[in-house]
């Protein structure tokens, strides 16, 4: 149902007005003694009325930090955020947010959850009620008004999240990976519903800014994609999507665009994207301070086997591989990159190719695989080599966890240092390079006898 309150203002002005300007915004995280860690570095974005813009990048690329700054939940360390030309300080009435985790109060009903934002505005009870019911109707939650969130499925919960944002009648809706906690089918239904409402002009919004790590989702929904690089986060490229709605994933033009985005994200010659690349040479030059994703050796072996087997025979198009393995691209990316880091495969232009050590790995037996893995680790992952060297040099053949975590924390946040060391431990154990005692938090060379 569309009443005059809920209809969108006309989006047909000749020159779309500028809503949001982000100028040279940087953000840091305090990290103990040494210098602060840079998460956002000189980000510039302009958002106009009538467009859906997607921020696309890997997890940890600072896009969520940027969203929090725009929502007024965090202040940038440098730079300025302007809303309609005026500097933004703190949360604004004109901006609402939808959370990845839904962020519903479990002790409030659907209706109460939707109403909650209207109360501080001093809106009378009757109007609160009618506006909330309208928003609930609009997003397709009729009949669930008195349900508690725990009684709802994930998709229905996120609809409550949308209704709660929309009831505020904001001009800009921020969405922080709003579909990534949902299963594939539910996510797709919700995406289509949102796009339909947007195209019909029934959302009381001027613009949407969404964070995503799903390439297809971004191509499906956005008018413009901003590619984000990691550490530090900055906008590396802008890709306009001019396909008309409704867009179809099977459409050739759509596939081409998805391929293009893949290619941009895995292009070794693109200087703006080098931070994303993990060629062995670069990894070595990054040295000990390189962040490692904690990916199990089973996944690495599994992907190499899948790559070596037909139909790929050692070389695959990443979107096709993702399809074949029914994996989301954002699950596939870190595995592929780790293979590249270890010198088992090469990733470029949206393709992945198994190289010589990788081929040999697939053909080897268990002991051979372990040997090969250990060689590649020592050659290509400096932190693993460092752990081994320290253990070899110490007469006790033991070293505490903190010896390495503190060294890593000079380069990265505590959280990342922990994940990196988790990867080091699990890879090192598989390769039988060293042992680790979790209770005592010590690395050692001894075999568990």
């Amino acid at each position, binding site marked *: 149902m569309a009443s005059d309150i809920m209809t969108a203002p006309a989006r047909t002005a000749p020159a779309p007005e500028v809503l949001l300007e982000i100028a040279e915004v940087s953000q840091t995280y305090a990290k103990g003694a040494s210098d602060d860690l840079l998460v956002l570095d000189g980000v510039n974005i302009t958002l106009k009325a009538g467009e859906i813009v997607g921020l696309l990048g890997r997890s940890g690329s600072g896009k969520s930090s940027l969203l929090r700054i725009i929502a007024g939940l965090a202040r940038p360390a440098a730079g300025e955020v302007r809303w309609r030309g005026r500097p933004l300080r703190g949360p604004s009435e004109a*901006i609402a947010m939808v959370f990845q985790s839904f962020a519903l109060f479990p002790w409030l009903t659907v209706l109460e959850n939707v109403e909650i934002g209207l109360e501080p505005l001093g809106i009378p009870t009757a109007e609160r009620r009618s506006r909330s019911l309208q928003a609930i109707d609009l997003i397709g939650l009729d009949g669930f008004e008195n349900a508690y969130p725990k009684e709802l499925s994930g998709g229905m919960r996120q609809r409550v999240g949308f209704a709660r944002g929309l009831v505020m009648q904001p001009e800009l809706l921020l969405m922080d990976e709003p579909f990534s906690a949902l299963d594939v089918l539910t996510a797709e239904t919700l995406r289509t519903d949102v796009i339909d409402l947007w195209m019909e002009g029934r959302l009381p919004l001027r613009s949407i800014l969404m964070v995503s790590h799903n390439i297809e989702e971004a191509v499906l929904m956005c008018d413009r994609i901003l590619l984000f690089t990691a550490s530090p986060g900055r906008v590396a490229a802008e890709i306009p999507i001019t396909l008309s709605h409704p867009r179809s994933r099977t459409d050739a033009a759509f596939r081409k665009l998805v391929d293009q985005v893949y290619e941009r994200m895995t292009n070794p010659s693109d200087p703006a994207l080098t931070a994303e690349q993990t060629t062995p040479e670069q990894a070595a030059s990054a040295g000990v301070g390189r962040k490692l994703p904690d990916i199990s050796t089973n996944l690495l072996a599994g992907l190499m086997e899948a790559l070596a087997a037909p139909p790929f025979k050692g070389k695959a198009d990443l979107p096709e591989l993702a399809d074949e393995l029914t994996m989301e691209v954002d699950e596939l990316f870190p595995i592929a990159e780790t293979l590249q880091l270890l010198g088992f495969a090469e990733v470029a232009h949206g393709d992945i190719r198994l190289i010589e050590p990788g081929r040999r790995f697939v053909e080897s037996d268990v002991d051979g695989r372990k040997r090969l893995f250990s060689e590649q680790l020592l050659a290509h992952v400096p932190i693993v080599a460092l752990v081994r060297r320290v253990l070899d040099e110490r007469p006790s053949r033991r070293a505490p966890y903190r010896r390495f975590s503190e060294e890593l924390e000079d380069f990265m946040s505590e959280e990342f240092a922990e994940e990196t060391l988790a990867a080091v431990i699990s890879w090192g154990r598989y390769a039988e390079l060293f042992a680790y005692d979790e209770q005592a938090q010590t690395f050692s060379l001894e075999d568990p006898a």
Partner: protein
Amino acid sequence: MPVHRPLSASRRPLLAGYTPPNIWDVVVFALVIGALTLIALGGRETLQPLVVANRTPISLDPAVLPGYALRTTMRMFAAMALSLLCTFVFGALAAKSRRAEMVIIPLIDVLQSVPVLGFLSFTVTGFMALFPGQVLGVEFAAIFAIFTSQAWNMVFSFYHSTRTLPRDLKDLSDSMRLGAWRRFWTLEAPYAAPSLIWNAMISMSGAWFFVVASEAISVGRVTVSLPGVGSYVALAIVQHDLRAIGWAVLTMALVILAYDQLLFRPLVAWAEKFRLDPPSTDAPIPRSWVLDFLQRTDLTRRLWRPVQSFLGSLASVRLGRPIDLTPGFSRVWSSRYADWGWYALLALTGALAAWRAAAYIGGEVSLGEVGWCLVLGLITLLRVVVLVVVASAVWLPLGVMIGLRPRWAAALQPVTQFLAAFPANILYPLVVAAVVRFRLAPDIWLSPLMILGAQWYILFNVIAGTRMFPADLLEAAASMRIRGWTWWRKVILPGVLPSYVTGAVTAGGGAWNAAIVAEAASWGSTRLEAHGLGAYIARATADGDLRRVVLGVAVMAVYVVLFNRLVWDPLFTSAARRLRAE
């Protein structure tokens, strides 16, 4: 799942992992002991024989017991109201201010370890100084004593909940600009509710012991007896009246049953709706017939609606915007220099308090006696350790066996919970009478009294821990035919260890506290005394010798804090770490 969760109160170290004793503990400790010294000094003048004109004599007629029980219960609830107030003020303060947190959290830790019954002489003295010659002062003293037994774990529970608020809900409240007051009612209070209600229940259970002990107390020549079940029992002891004690036991049992069924079970079941994580499937959801009845009755719904809308309007009271401090002031306020100023202030106050306390105690007590006091502490420590070991040897295997049989466990869990709440000191006269009759050695035979009420915490927690033990692990062990000692050592004990440690800490703490009434007990005119720190404190209290009370309390608190920090915390941390699946 409250009902199946280990029965234990929120404590700092068990939740925060192992922290070795540090300098702040020392400072805070000095502050606590210094404060006690000040109260003792202030109340010194008032230790005249109490002349209370309107004091009603205690009667042993069973007919007066319902009235007494009511008054005892009212004291409990008055103390609970005070505890809640304290919780919201100090818990919130600690969660929101870094500097307050630095003091409040170690303070709670120390206060949890200071024997509550040691407080009693101070509170009686202090409140009688405030209300000379009036019963009101004594009432307040009793309520305050109960409060000191209830409040700390509740404060900590609220602090911990507020600190662990999910970030998305916090972000949401900010982006909706709910404001501090509304945020408290819509987010912080509901989120803290399940844990807070649970801790309040534990506090209430523990407090029955203290309410009974605090109603009849003598400090020097001042004898206080407030109408209540506690003084009824005290009089029955003086008059050798076993029948009256039987009536008191029955009354207490009924009162505790009523408060459990009518108040806390409904509250715990109701608080389920504030739980964020969905309950695991195998643990039954806490239920309450009273709550079901209330929720299904139209009348209560009608009565509840105005209350609800009142609470709702309370939450939407629009408080003025917080004062925006000038940038200059807020910069100075949050600077490092202000931090140093704060540290210096704390350290100075601590030093002053330590000096004052030392001067006060040292005025009459020799260094040799301090040493003797430490030795007595060792004796009591030995008792506590032996009792906890013996109780564990009995209840750990039994608890596991009960826990493995769901129907037994379901039937016995409320019983153990009830036994833990029952004030064991009401039963002391029976044991003391037996010790007197059979001429047993008090040093040995008075000891079991210390664990009488506290042992149930071990049983309860082991049952709960066993029920939470993953069924697939038990099946795997059975299919591999792991039996006997190997099964205990490799399968079940590591699994229930964290729950067991939680129970043992609570039991140990209870035993320390009980030492003050258990190591020196009487039956009629016969007074039995065992050697130990508890007896030392009890005697000093009876003599009105507050210096020695301060000394005894300080020594006991040191023992408890050190024992918790050096034995229980590392044990719990390592047990919990090992159990964690990922």
